[in-house]
């Protein structure tokens, strides 16, 4: 009966581990919530959410978070616009065209891209990407959303290409054979059969990459500047939510004032945004799953 007893013990230990994981979330929410509460006692929620000027460190102060959200969205949209098509092409190459040896050589090489510290990307953007953009568009500001979005795109590229490659590889070969047996070209097989069949996992990869782009801090701080503003252009300076949090929490402003509390409010919003995105992603994935099985 010893092994039966062990079974119960193991069960218990494992349960404790899960509780710890759960606790993390609770503490994050509690912490962000508590400090944000103090903030929202002084700044009305609607002013925070819908205000269009984010100048908590200027006189007169203004607490509309939208410029930060717009800045964040620019990075997210820009980086995914680069990483998704490139990543899918690479994944297709690796999974459908490349030889086994080529694949196992290129994949880890690409994964190095994801391991490079993000500070490095920041400097790469400033010293390489921005000058490149400025030769094309001379009006570009030295800090600009485009350059930051490009390096963030490069950073999340291996994530998308690796995960999509895995997704493509996981599809049964019989699917490809079925298509080729109808006389399809490799292009048709890849784009019309493989890609849609792997849609759920591609979607999951994109969600993961998106959250990585949202959470990216250092590269964006360096390359995109620190100018929160509402605009549509990619060639001007912006500030993202994460960059703002770092700026404030490492800056010289007093640590107990309303200025400092802003970073918890922004953090809470960031948390809520990733949460909503994940729920949407999850919903979308289970839905496609259901259709396919």
């Amino acid at each position: 009966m010893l092994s039966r007893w062990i079974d119960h013990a193991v069960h218990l230990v494992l349960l404790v581990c899960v509780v710890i994981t759960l606790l993390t979330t609770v503490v994050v929410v509690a912490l962000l919530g508590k400090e944000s509460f103090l903030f929202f006692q002084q700044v009305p929620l609607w002013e925070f959410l819908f205000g269009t000027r984010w100048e908590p460190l200027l006189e007169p102060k203004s607490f509309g978070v939208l410029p930060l959200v717009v800045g964040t969205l620019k990075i997210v949209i820009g980086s995914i616009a680069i990483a998704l098509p490139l990543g899918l092409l690479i994944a297709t190459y690796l999974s459908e065209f490349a030889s086994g040896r080529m694949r196992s050589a290129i994949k880890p090489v690409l994964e190095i891209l994801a391991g490079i510290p993000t500070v490095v990307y920041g400097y790469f953007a400033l010293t390489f990407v921005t000058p490149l953009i400025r030769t094309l568009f001379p009006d570009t500001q030295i800090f600009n959303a485009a350059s930051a979005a490009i390096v963030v795109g490069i950073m999340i590229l291996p994530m998308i290409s690796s995960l999509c490659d895995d997704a493509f590889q996981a599809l049964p070969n019989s699917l490809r054979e079925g298509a080729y047996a109808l006389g399809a070209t490799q292009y048709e097989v890849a784009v019309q059969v493989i890609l849609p069949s792997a849609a759920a996992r591609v979607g999951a990869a994109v969600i993961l990459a998106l959250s990585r782009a949202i959470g990216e801090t250092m590269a964006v701080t360096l390359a995109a500047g620190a100018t929160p503003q509402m605009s549509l252009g990619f060639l001007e300076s912006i500030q993202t939510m994460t960059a703002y949090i770092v700026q404030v929490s490492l800056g010289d402003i007093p640590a107990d004032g309303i200025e400092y509390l802003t970073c918890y409010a922004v953090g809470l919003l960031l948390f809520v945004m990733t949460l909503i995105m994940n729920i949407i992603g999850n919903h979308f994935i289970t839905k496609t799953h259901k259709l396919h099985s």
Partner: protein
Amino acid sequence: KELKGTVKVDGSSTVFPITEAVAEEFGMLKEHRRVRVTVGVSGTGGGFKKFLAGETDINDASRPIKQQEINKAQKNGIQYLELPVAYDGLSVVVNKANTWVDYLTVAELHKIWKPGSTVKTWKDIRPNWPDQKIQLYGPGTDSGTFDYFTETINGKSQASRSDFTKSEDDNVLVNGVAGDKGSLGYFGFAYYVENKDKIKVVPVKQGDNKPVAPTLTTINNGSYAPLSRPIFIYVNLHSAKKPEVREFIRFYLKHAKELAKEVGYVPLTDQEYQKYLDQFEHDFLKLAES
């Protein structure tokens, strides 16, 4: 006898290079072998938070302590001493290709940087300057540099126009100014000194004085005004009861002169260092007696 123990320093990244240099020299002496000095960069505000909670012995500060922080200190019963350790001359710089600027007056700087400023081109500053678009560069709004600049030029700390290009990294500002023909920016003196070949510094004219450009001498003797600011360390006087902390402060004030210069800041005068050292000994003695 040999000292031993820990000296914990935290705070501004602006002051960090000086403190690092002091810590390095301090640690090289044989009698300090067993003293562990740690220096962090949580920012002046983050540093004060730890300092005022009694977690650190010394706080590097690129601005004077603020009222709310003073209140906190009183509440927590923390007694501290402010010690200026060097000057940072805020340098106003323009692009190398800018041939027209000879100097700027404080009033002109105010016109450019005041909240809601309408200055768009150089012509808007002085009518005989070209109709070249002006691009403004400055440090992030959370920084002590920004705080000081807005206070001296615009009369109120953190009051500034907001449509300028900001960055947390002064190196990046240097590149910005170097790359933009119509640019104007300000940042720490050290960054100007290291990049003299890339950018051009603008002399500043206060009142009826002659325009003065920032140099070691002009900052040191106070003639570069009003844009040179002191940077500080704050000492927890209770901590100073620990011999290793006391020794570290003494060492700091004795060697700050040469070390500050070495890392790109402008030292105070010998008399000033002596004055602060005396004040420290006095305040500390007073506390020790009570």
